[in-house]
């Protein structure tokens, strides 16, 4: 893809790609290779709340210290990265697919379908996304699937508006008219001519959406309405550390650093994609 080549040439995009790759590798390898099981609870009283960069009584080194059950924070953080990254990616991608579908059909079919789709998206946009997520999370039982579905249901509106505007704009171009004049069927015009040319802004929005989906998932999990322990996610790890914030602040603060790094990387990547797309 020439987009990815052009993107990797700026320092922001390079940093973002390196951070994301390191996180993915860490998420895959660290929990598998760790000397201690990140899920198992050993001698909690002796091992708990080890500060970062210290050895515990069993002579295991802890890069980020241990939590209230004596588990290694860094290993757990990387285990949580699996869930957090997957949920964010899946939520944003699915929301993007729904948004592209709704936006393209609204612009293409027009009439009452367009009006209804845009009214629904306006109404949903009027509710802050977190509030919408909270309402849904309160109605359906918590878990990974619920979080992904709710992220999809509350995240498609922005992409739908973008794609609708793009399709309407592209439709006015001469090559679309020529394709029609040459006898191309409507579906072919939509798939071959309109969508490929209208997708650029949607891809940028989806990339930026990954970051906000990860943030929202962590928020729900922090409140106890998202990913449920013992399955670690960055949000519920921060919630775990909240009670110990006065004695061992690193338990709550360390997972947040991974979260911030991921979201910054996603926004750098999205910005750069947007910039190269606009050239």
């Amino acid at each position, binding site marked *: 893809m020439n987009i990815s080549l052009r993107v990797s040439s700026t320092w922001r995009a390079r940093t973002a790609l390196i951070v994301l790759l390191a996180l993915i590798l860490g998420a895959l390898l660290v929990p598998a290779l760790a000397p201690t099981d990140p899920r198992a609870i050993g001698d909690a009283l002796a091992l708990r709340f080890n500060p970062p960069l210290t050895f515990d009584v069993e002579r295991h080194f802890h890069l980020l210290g241990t939590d209230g059950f004596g588990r290694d924070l860094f290993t757990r953080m990387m285990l949580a990265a699996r869930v957090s990254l997957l949920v964010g990616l899946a939520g944003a991608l699915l929301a993007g697919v729904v948004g592209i579908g709704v936006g393209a059909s609204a612009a293409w079919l027009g009439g009452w379908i367009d009006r209804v789709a845009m009214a629904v998206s*306006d109404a949903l946009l009027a*509710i*802050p996304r977190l509030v919408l997520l909270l309402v849904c999370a309160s109605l359906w039982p918590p878990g990974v699937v619920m979080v992904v579905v709710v992220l999809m249901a509350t995240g498609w509106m922005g992409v739908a508006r973008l794609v609708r505007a793009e399709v309407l704009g592209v439709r006015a171009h001469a090559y679309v008219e020529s394709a029609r004049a040459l006898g191309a069927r409507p579906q072919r015009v939509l798939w071959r001519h309109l969508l490929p040319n209208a997708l650029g802004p949607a891809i940028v929005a989806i990339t930026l959406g990954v970051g906000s989906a990860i943030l929202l998932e962590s928020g729900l999990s922090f409140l106890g309405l998202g990913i449920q322990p013992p399955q670690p996610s960055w949000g519920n790890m921060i919630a775990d550390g909240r009670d110990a914030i006065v004695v061992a602040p690193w338990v*709550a603060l360390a997972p947040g650093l991974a979260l*911030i790094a991921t*979201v910054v990387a996603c926004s750098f990547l999205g910005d750069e994609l947007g910039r190269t797309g606009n050239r």
Partner: protein
Amino acid sequence: MRLLVRRLLDSAVLLWLVLTFTFLLLRAAPGDPAALLIPPSATAADAARARAELGLDRPLVVQYARWARDILKGDLGQSFVQRRPVAQLLAGALPVSLGLGLSSLALTFLIGMAVGAVQAARRDTATDTVLTVLTTSVYAAPSYWLALALVACFTYGAARWRFPAVLRLPAFGIHDPAGTSSGFGAAVDVLRHAILPVATLTAIGAAGIARYTRTIAVNLLRADFVRTARAKGVPGVTIYTRHVLSNALPPLVVLFALALPGVLAGSVFVEVVFAWPGMGRLMVTAIFARDYPVVMGAAALYAALVILANLAGDLALPILDPRRRA
């Protein structure tokens, strides 16, 4: 004038759609809506009576009509847990959230615009790069994480690094339970309790506004009319106030309206972490208590605030931007 009426009508329709959506969502949820709308502790006989009272045994259209009538009367239902009208609970929590939100929104814009202006003036220097990395990171930080970091700093850190008494800011609650309840002392107490929550919300908001301000100001500083002004010898300060600021304000006012939902959502977490009795905490507590009338009422009120803010932004735009006066 016609524009005003049209925008008011649009907003009213939108609010009605949102309210209808909360009505439908409650009925689309798995299980019997009666189970959601009737206290879990009710006996079978109580449940049957309540079901008839709430009209849940009637067709959906009838339920909708009843619900609409109640809404128009300002009746949002009764909280199961607190046994008080939802409207009354929300009225108690709203001032806390609004106070928190509006004071941080004002600070957000002051600080954010200042940082963005500094970045634009020193663009592509080390100062600019450092501020860009800083604002991007703070903007990406979840509000509850930033809140906890501040709590850690003023509890764990205050003990460890021996902060002086003035700097030992309270990290929980809206006032000191043992303190005076009225007068100057109480006001100072609330202000001291407000510093950390407001700082959390302001930091995240200001980081976002700084990024926008930088982009807008950099583009304006490159504009032809700024170059002309420079060439004819207009002093730097006048360029910034007359030419850059007056052109940057309209898009920032739109942003002001768009920033409100983010601040409100952020305040949900900040209220939870700092134990402030606002709407966000009311809503989260209600979710855990399965107190659905309160959950839906709070969601509707949040939506109403966002719609109002957008309306206000739209109406303020022509005042600031002569080109929009039709």
